[in-house]
């Protein structure tokens, strides 16, 4: 008699115990690393810095689905801001943007399922998903035009959107595949 697992319907959007636990781990790690790891300044720019740990957000999205991606980005950034600044409320839209980046990255495996046959192709897709997720997700910060009109279009573009997207895309493109390479063989082993 062969028994397959029962009582689990793992749709893209279902919030299983697994998704809850992975999201909590990802969010806690993202928060902790935001607080401990150094940001790397890109030489020759004043305000573009790369936080490698941002790759966690897109990795969790890519590996465990859009819900996990969103929760890691949103809760992780909120808690991280709370740790670093004491307050995450004055900039909630940044947390939402982080969450959306993870969510969009998490949609790629759904869209690209048929193309991702080898670990290599999954790694490439993961890098692309990370970058696209970042570019799309951070569009959300344009909500500042409404919330803080005095910032002005130029400040948001040159002071916020472009530097953030460059820095985070670099982190996502490099770190998402690195984590995937480490995780996939192990997932096979745990193989539930």
């Amino acid at each position, binding site marked *: 008699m062969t028994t397959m*697992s029962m009582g689990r319907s793992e749709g893209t959007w279902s919030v299983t115990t697994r998704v809850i636990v992975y999201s909590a781990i990802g969010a806690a790690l993202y928060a902790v690393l935001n607080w401990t790891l150094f940001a790397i300044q890109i030489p020759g720019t004043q305000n573009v810095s790369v936080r490698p740990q941002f790759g966690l957000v897109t990795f969790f999205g890519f590996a465990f689905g859009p819900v996990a991606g969103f929760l890691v980005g949103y809760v992780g950034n909120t808690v991280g801001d709370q740790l670093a600044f004491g307050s995450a409320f004055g900039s909630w839209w940044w947390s939402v943007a982080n969450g959306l980046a993870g969510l969009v990255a998490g949609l790629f495996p759904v869209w690209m399922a048929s193309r991702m046959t080898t670990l290599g192709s999954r790694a490439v897709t993961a890098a692309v998903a990370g970058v696209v997720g970042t570019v799309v997700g951070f569009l959300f910060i344009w909500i500042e035009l409404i919330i803080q009109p005095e910032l002005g279009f130029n400040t948001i573009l040159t002071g916020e959107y472009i530097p953030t997207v460059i820095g985070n895309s670099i982190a996502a493109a490099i770190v998402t595949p690195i984590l995937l390479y480490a995780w996939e063989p192990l997932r096979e082993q745990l193989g539930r």
Partner: protein
Amino acid sequence: MAASSLLEIADLSFQYRRASQPALRHISLRLEAGEVLLVAGPSGCGKSTLIRAINGLIPHSYRGELSGRVVVDGRATADLRLRDLALLVGTVLQDPRKQLVASTVAAELAFGPENMAVPPAEIRRRVHEVGASGGIEHLIERTTDELSGGESQQLAIAGALMLRPRVLVLDEPLANLDPVAAHRLLALVRRLADEGTAVVVVEHRVEDVLEARPDRVLYLDDGAATYLGPLDGFLKIADPTTVKLPFAVALARAVPGAELLAPAPATNAGTSGPPRLEWAGVDAGYDGRQVLHAVSASLQRDETVAVLGPNGSGKTTLFKAAIGLINRTAGDVLVDGVSTSGRGVADLVGTFGYVFQNPSQMLFARTVRDEILFGPINLGRDPAQFDALVTTSLGRVNLATEDEIEARPPLTLSFGQQKRLAIAVALGLEPRTLLLDEPSAGQDHRSATAFMTEVERIEGLESVYFVTHDADLALVHADRILLMRDGRIVADGPPLEVIADRERWAACNLRYTSLMEANARWGAQTGGFLPASELAGWIVARSEREAGDIGQALG
């Protein structure tokens, strides 16, 4: 069919989806209310798998090939939902810290009943009831992250009892407990059984579980039951190299050993130049919290030294202070007679190889080869030597024969293999002294002993200093024991000397094992602390000789 069995397993076999062979083969047993069943066997024999089959994770959460049935309280687990099973079977998993999901002790206890929608007033009543019977009432207001390993274990058990299960399964519950806490737990297990719960305990420290008076023993080997029956019978047939048995059992079954050579040489203290490592009045700690208090000790160049002490006594901190991972606030650390003040961690890398307690904490590379070479590359060693370096490092820890080992992802190795890889990684930097934090953690009796013996044979390695909770292991392998308590060294000397003071031993939350009793008794004649099989062999040989002498005198 007697309908009264609380737990009934009939011809159960299971093979994990990705596995090439079954983890359980044709297991059958019945357990009545009020019985305690001890499940023992070497690492990887299927103990945890059996537990998963009882609590329903198999087949509800793990995929694979299942045949046979598990029936709890008259209902097949395959037909019940996990939530209904949760009311029948309470589970404590192998690692207690990983199963604590709430921030406070009270919330942790409430977690199960909350999920079952038990009304808050009723939950509160149970929290007090279980808190009292589990001996954790004083912890109720605490947060879970500040609990010690032993306290976490007690909490995990109490959490499982909150749903009032009829069957309680415990996976290696003693692993994190010091003897005092272990005693309390075993008394609780016995009491629960006497009150009508059926209890299944997995444990390879058989000697330590005897206190809970298990009614029956199931011995698993490679997924199959090789023994199922009363305890006495088990003690007669069990293999003392795979499970830890009382010394009396080893003695009863011993074959006469060879004549002992001259007493093992005493420590070489002071015979060969300056000590390898010396703490001189060191104070150290974390964030203003002082852990080490004026610690002084010196370890020689060619010694094997073990550090023993209760949880949180500062053993790990002692090692970290030695190689400069934490800053000391007073005193000095000298390596080969030279002060380390102003020298960085990297400076000491050539002298000390440090293996952390948890190997997976440092494994990150894509292949075993990259993992070993990470250090040498960081330190700018000569790439021409790399091939030879990888081969010898792996060879020294018995990993070289593993298939395609160099190309495997490190994190896919088994725990024991990861631990050995961690040592290979340290050896790759060609240290002269190895610092090992808990080399025996998470391994069964056989692998733990084998591991230490392997390490001692590594050529080119002058000394090994290690931290452990396994007193027998320390006493057998070390030339010298450092006993720590509350950040101070309270004893320092050869094994037999350190265990002579029983009060001090107990004050460090350590227990006098049956092997220690025997060694304390015969030590003066054997000249050192011997492992069970050797000591038993020696005693038998000696009594035969005496019998012979008497025979000659008579004849």
